[in-house]
């Protein structure tokens, strides 16, 4: 082989390796999904969705878990959305270039890198003990809300940054105040981007187990919660609990619950991707 042939061979070989690497993760994922579907799909029926937990695998259901997940999502959204969007607006529109804004920015990117289990320790002590909320839904929701904040703040800022200056100029020139400009022009124009971030944060929260285990969410809750101060469990914790049991029948339950959890995650992510594309296409400045 001449030198140039060797080079061309290396080039082609790497291309093959690149394709291999690109698909290996997806192939593994596909194998796993097929496995899960084979294991769990047959287990999903009306009773599985509506049964309370039980020590006997074939009678156990995920009713308390998905109700708990729903509660947690709604409660944490109520806290995290307004806070995160407001903080993002402040950093992008008001606090630019000030020293505190710089500090806030470093702080938020640090928070984004704090492991979720550490948020659990924070929630356990502050919400659980200092506020006296114990291992309730509210403790869990507040903890997850803090976890979601950095994601929402960062995507809000990016979405707002994409709104061109000319729109703000036009609004100011018509006598609008800063807040009127933000409220009537900037936020509506960046709505798609902000919504994408919010949904991604939700999809992150729906899969979290570790911080909720730490704050004291229980694996076994006999009844579905009816108020924010009730004890609760969520789907990921229910799955974790079933995985930890030795009997094969519980592994089947886990697989079935995973299908439901993945379905929720994929739907949320799908909506986010759809919104992002739609929003990008619609608005051309």
């Amino acid at each position, binding site marked *: 082989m001449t030198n140039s042939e060797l080079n061309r061979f290396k080039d082609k070989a790497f291309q093959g390796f690149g394709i291999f690497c690109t698909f290996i993760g997806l192939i593994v994922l596909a194998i796993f999904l097929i496995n899960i579907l084979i294991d769990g799909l047959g287990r999903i029926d009306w009773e599985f969705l509506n049964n309370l937990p039980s020590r006997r695998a074939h009678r156990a259901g995920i009713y308390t878990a998905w109700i708990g997940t729903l509660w947690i999502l709604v409660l944490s959204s109520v806290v995290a959305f307004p806070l995160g969007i407001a903080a993002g607006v402040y950093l992008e529109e008001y606090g630019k*270039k000030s020293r505190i804004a710089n500090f806030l920015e470093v702080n938020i990117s640090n928070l984004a890198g704090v492991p979720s289990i550490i948020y659990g320790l924070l929630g356990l002590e502050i919400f659980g003990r200092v506020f006296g909320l114990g291992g309730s839904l509210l403790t869990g929701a507040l903890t997850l809300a803090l976890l979601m904040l950095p994601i929402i703040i960062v995507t809000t800022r990016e979405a707002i940054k994409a709104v*061109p200056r*000319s*729109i703000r*100029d*036009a*609004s*100011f*020139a*018509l*006598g*609008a*105040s800063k807040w*009127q400009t933000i409220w*009537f*022009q900037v936020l*509506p*124009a960046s709505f798609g981007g902000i919504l994408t971030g919010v949904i991604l944060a939700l999809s992150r929260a729906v899969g979290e187990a570790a911080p909720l285990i730490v704050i004291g969410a229980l694996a076994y809750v006999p009844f579905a919660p009816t108020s924010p101060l009730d004890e609760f469990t969520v789907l990921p914790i229910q799955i974790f609990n079933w995985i930890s049991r030795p009997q094969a029948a519980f592994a089947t339950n886990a697989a079935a619950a995973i299908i439901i959890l993945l379905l929720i995650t994929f739907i949320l992510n799908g909506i986010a991707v759809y919104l992002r594309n739609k929003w990008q296409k619609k*608005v*051309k400045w």
Partner: protein
Amino acid sequence: MSKKPYKLEARNLNAYYGGFHALKDINIAMEEKAVTAFIGPSGCGKSTFLRTLNRMNDYIDGFRVEGDILLDGRDIYNKDIRVDELRKEVGMVFQKPNPFPKTVFENVVYGLKIQGIKDKKVLAEAAESSLRKTALWEEVKDKMDKSALALSGGQQQRLCIARALAISPSVVLMDEPTSALDPISTAKIEELIYELKNDYTIVIVTHNMQQAGRVSDQTAFFYMGELVEYAKTKTMFTSPKHERTQNYITGRFG
């Protein structure tokens, strides 16, 4: 021709971007219900000056102004003046058409809505009359609920002018309003400017010498932050006093 009263006046005006001295000791008085054109090479300060007239530069970090700008004899940089009130009096049209990504109707009535006017009839009437003033009504009356971004570039710019007129300003500032448009749309806008001067005081920044000649009554030539020459347009274009003006007008630099 009787002398019209002065609408806008700058006295010993200096402006800075941080350490950069962008406008140097500008003194100029603009007539009411007339068109004043600002010309000059890029970076000469003409746009900066235009944007001090409705305080659009307030939001730029490190920008500051010394001296006075008088609107009907009142200093607009005075502490008592509220910027939003000022901008209702002094409207602005930008270089590139910048309609809001909303309906045509929402664009026109935005300035009224933020003033708290909610009456649908009032808004609709205001929208129609402003759109008529910009000769856009016939073209868009069936598209009021359509996105303004679907209009052509020229229509968008006329919509932006209508939007500015809807809050009944007495002055309209135009920052190179046709630089992003094709010749036909440009002609329409120029025609419009000619008509609007019956009711409004218009200040226009332009790169296009012929345009200044066609639309303006007075022309001011800026160079390196200084106001070099200010005269009747006809005079300026036929017998400029300064050599720099002469060179610029005849296209020797710029």
